[in-house]
Structures are given as C-alpha cells and as structure tokens.
C-alpha cells in the first residue's frame, strides 16, 4: 500500500476544514471496505485519509418530526439491529442484509456505500423508493436534496471534495410504506448485485397510490423508473399493469454487458424482478 497520512478529526467542521485544506489529495474514510481495497491496488493521488467514521454528527438512528434520520456513518449491522428500522423500513434492513458478509456490514456504513456510488450500491434502491433525502455539509454550509440528485455518474456524486454526507432522511409519511427489495447476485453469500430492484406503493380505494420503482446496477447510477411509476399511479393493480411497468423498467435501464452477465440477461432479470417486487409490495399493501 502507498504511504498515507491518517487524521481523525474531532468534529464534522474540522473534517470539512481538513478536506478543504488538502483538496484532491485527501479523502474521507468511512468503513473503508471499498476505499482500503482501492488504496492497496490502484494508483491514485490520495495521500491523506480523514477518518470521519467516529464523528457524532454522522452517527445515530432516530425518529424525528420529519421522519427517520440515519446518520451517514451508521453501519449496516447497526441498521439491521435497530428496532425502529426493523419496524418502519424493513426493506432498507433487507437491503443492508444483502451487503457483503457480516464483517463487511460491521465496518461498512450506509453513507460510505452511497458516497462510493458504485452503480450496484445495494442500499440505494431501497432508500430511493421511500423518497429518501440526504444532507450534505461542506465549507459552504449544509444542503439537502433528494437522494436521486446525489448520484451523478458511476463512482461520482454531487459532493464537492470538501463536502461530506451527514445523514439520510426517510420522510415520515413513507415510514411503514409497503415496499419490497430484491437483490440478484451470482451466489447467495457475499454477492455483488447483477440487478437490485425495489418497489414501494400504497393502495387507496383499491388503486395504486404513489408507486415508486428503483433499480441498481442497471445504469451508470441507481435509477428511478418514473415513467413506470406514472403508468401505475391511480390504476387498479393488474398483472397487465405490472408487466407493462416492468417492460418500461427494461427500456429505461442501460445494463452493461460484462463477464458477470450479458446485457440481455440483465434485461430479463429486470423484467422478472421488477414484476416480483411490485407484486410483493401489492401483497403487503393488500394485507395491511
């Protein structure tokens, strides 16, 4: 591994100052499950690690008037064990459970996963279908945005080099919203996603209300399928509608062709799995 400097600042403000000072040479360190691997194997100009994993501002899971706040440095394991998460956002818990293995989930943080911004980030689709928002802090102060706007491209977020992700907020109205997440990987343990898919919706007077569909690993960033959501909104649930929504998801996706799977197979998975998460969400909505 290359020579590095390691700094653990006392506060978010100090972390931001350090990042601003070192510019491109510095990088925030969260769980490190991706970053340390990169540092070992790829050349690059990062020489200063600013450890933000222990900062109080980025920790904690709590229900507020606005909704459920999850600090960016909360680990997957902490989400999985948290009673509020288990009750109010079970599919975020389910998605967290599919990340790596126990050791990865004990170190890896939900914020780190979003900031790394690989297309296959497992937590992203589950958060997106709940209209999650993210808060960012930096030298220019704080800003908040819908999670979709956070992702810019593969391994690229809206964050400026001096900015840090503070927390994720799931709006109050979406806590407990019927939803479903499915990850398809090449094996069961420690799988990387070929396709991640999540759906959330409600039923009002027998009609689909505020449907959300999000997919991961099928485009340069995790994506919402707005056209399919529009198609379903206000409609009675039917096999035909679900199949059509899934077809739109296929058209809206731009899956890659690589050694893990062909693009055409990924499209087949998108069709099948989108139908499945929609059907499952409907089942939950019907039951509740």
């Amino acid at each position, binding site marked *: 591994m290359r020579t590095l400097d390691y700094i653990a600042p006392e506060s978010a403000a100090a972390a931001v100052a350090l990042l601003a000072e070192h510019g491109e040479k510095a990088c925030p360190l969260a769980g490190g499950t991706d970053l340390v691997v990169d540092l070992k194997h790829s050349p690059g100009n990062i020489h200063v690690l600013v450890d933000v994993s222990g900062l109080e501002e980025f920790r904690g899971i709590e229900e507020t008037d606005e909704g459920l706040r999850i600090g960016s440095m909360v680990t997957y394991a902490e989400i999985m064990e948290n009673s509020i998460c288990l009750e109010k956002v079970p599919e975020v818990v389910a998605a967290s459970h599919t990340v790596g293995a126990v050791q990865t989930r004990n170190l890896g943080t939900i914020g780190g996963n979003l900031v790394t911004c690989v297309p296959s980030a497992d937590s992203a689709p589950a958060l997106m279908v709940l209209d999650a928002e993210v808060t960012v802090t930096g030298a220019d102060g704080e800003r908040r945005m819908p999670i979709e706007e956070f992702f810019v491209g593969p391994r690229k977020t809206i964050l400026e080099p001096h900015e840090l992700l503070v927390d994720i907020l799931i709006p109050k109205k979406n806590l407990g919203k019927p939803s479903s997440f499915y990850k398809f990987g090449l094996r*069961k343990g420690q799988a990387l996603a070929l396709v991640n898919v999540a759906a959330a919706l409600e039923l009002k007077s027998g009609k689909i209300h505020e449907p959300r569909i999000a997919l991961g690993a099928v485009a340069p960033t995790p994506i919402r399928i707005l056209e399919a959501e529009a198609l379903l909104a206000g409609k009675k649930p039917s096999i035909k509608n679900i199949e059509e929504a899934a077809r739109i998801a296929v058209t809206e996706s731009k899956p890659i062709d690589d*050694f893990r799977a062909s693009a055409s197979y990924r499209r087949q998975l998108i069709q099948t799995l989108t139908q499945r998460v929609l059907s499952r969400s409907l089942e939950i909505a019907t039951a509740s």
Partner: protein
Amino acid sequence: MKKRGRGMACMWYPIGFTVAANPSAATVKVNTDGTATLLTGTVETGQGALTVLGQIAAETLGLATDDVHVVSGDTDVTPMDTGAIASRTTYVTGNAIVRAAEKAREILFESTAPLLNVKPDQLEARDKQIQVLGFPSKSISIADAVQHSESIVGNPAIGSATYNPPTVEMDPETGQGKPFNTYVYATQIADIEVDDETGEVEILKIVAVHDCGTPINPMLVEGQIQGGISMGVGFALQEEILFEEGRQINPNLTNYIMPTSLDMPELDVGLVDNYDPTGPFGAKGAGEPTAVPTAAAIMNAIHDAVGVRITTLPATAERVLGAIMEKQELEQAAG
C-alpha cells in the same frame, strides 16, 4: 416459478498414478514405553492424512491412535514419498506403513516368543499387548516387549518398508492394460429447485454415498466427501476463470465465484461397507472422488426440473435461463 428436480450420478475413480510408479516408504520405530514414532515423507495438506497414517501404524502394532507420533515432511528426516496427490496416501503410503510396522512387530514377536514359550508366528499384537493367538491371557505388554527386545536381546523394534501399487503397462495402440491396482465407486443425488424465470439453481440437498474400502477414520472420510461436494457445487454452478486475449479477467475472490456457507446445501453422507484386500486393513482412498459426480448429479436434476440439458459448465443462472428459453422457443415453433 420454482421447479423442483432431482438427479443422480455415479462414478468410479482409481487410486494412485496411471501406470507410473508412485512409491512410498515408511519407517516405524517402537519406543520402550510402548509408544511409537512413524516417519513418512508425505505432507499434511489438510485431509487428516497424518492422523489416518498414524491409525494404520497403531493398528498394525496393536496400539491406540494416540500412542503413535507421526513425523512428516522433512527431506532430511523422512523417507521417500510420492506425495499428497492422486488419492494415494491412505492406500500407498498406508500399505508401506503396514509393511514397516509389521517388520518392527516381527522383531518383537521374535524377541518375545521365547518368553512366552511359543513360536513367533503364534503371536499377535493387540490391545497394547503381544499375545498368543487364541490364548490372549498369555501375553506381554508391548512396552515390556520392546524393552526386552532392545535391552536384553539387543534388537530394537524398528521397521522400514516401501510399497508401490502393481500395474501393467497400457498397450500404446489400444490402451489395454492394468493402469491402477484398485478403484473406488460412488453415487451422489441432488435435490434442487430451478427458478424458471431467472435460471437460478438452488440446491436443497445432496446425498452422497461413497466407497473408500474400510474407512480408517470415518469422521475424516465424511469431511473429505463434504468438502469434495462443495468443490463440485462450484464446478457445477459458479466457478470459471475467464479470459480476454489470454489475460485472466477475474483473478480474485470477488469475481471468481466459489461457494460460501450460504451456497452449500444440507449434505447427507453415507459410506458403503466394503473391504479391499489389497489395501491397508481393506482401505482404498477418499480424497479426489468426492468432487467427481456432484456436477453431473446437479445437471441431471436441472434436466429433471425444467427439461433442459446443460452441456457447458458452469450452469450459471444466465446459461440455465438461456436453455429454458431456447426450449420454449423450439416448443412454440413446433406448435
């Protein structure tokens, strides 16, 4: 939808090298307190070979497993061995050890026969005693026997021997010949589910029944079978080194997909009751054959579940779904 299927595969597998000589040598030394030391040139590579070889030495000398210390893996100290390869250790090295321990035992028989007023061929080594065949109450402890042989008779109980499985050259034109001295047999049956919309194969259970001759240590044989099956599962469904212009593109454990604990099904392992008179106490071998029939059983179960024949391994979900869709298209074309 998930479709259930079951498939079986059986196999045969030889012990040792193909015709080529693959000898082992061994030295057994019995200590004056009735414990023993075994010297072998093989190396423990995880199978528990040294434990099994110690058990074979102990059995020949009438001792318990714990009485034998096994020294291995040092060319300055240990005798020639072809090595941990070709499922040969129990059979070939084991046979050498039996012969070496018999030589040491023979020394004890000769030294103690006069004490017991019998001929050496009337003696056996059993339960840590040298005793008269058919009259076990007339006996001397092995410790005393070694002490006597070494200190009074002046003949320490040491034996060295070699073994090489007898083979017959294969005819270069027809391949006819006797390339191996013995073979093992096995059957595995897989119970699986195939998701016919994603092609994903889930193995629910594998039953494996193997012949290894006498299992010298059944616990270790089970371990070999269970481990072999996991390699078979990877071979069947997941594992493949991929190349682009001669360069490996997945040379890491992130992208080379081998089974994790979540990918392994329940295993039910059985051993066939068998005895090979040419092996040490009837034993043959267990290492490699355990990985042989697994993939075939799984492919047959896939065929049973969804009616497609996978002809190229591994049967990734993508490949299985491709075969299912091809079949559906053919059926539709046929009307």
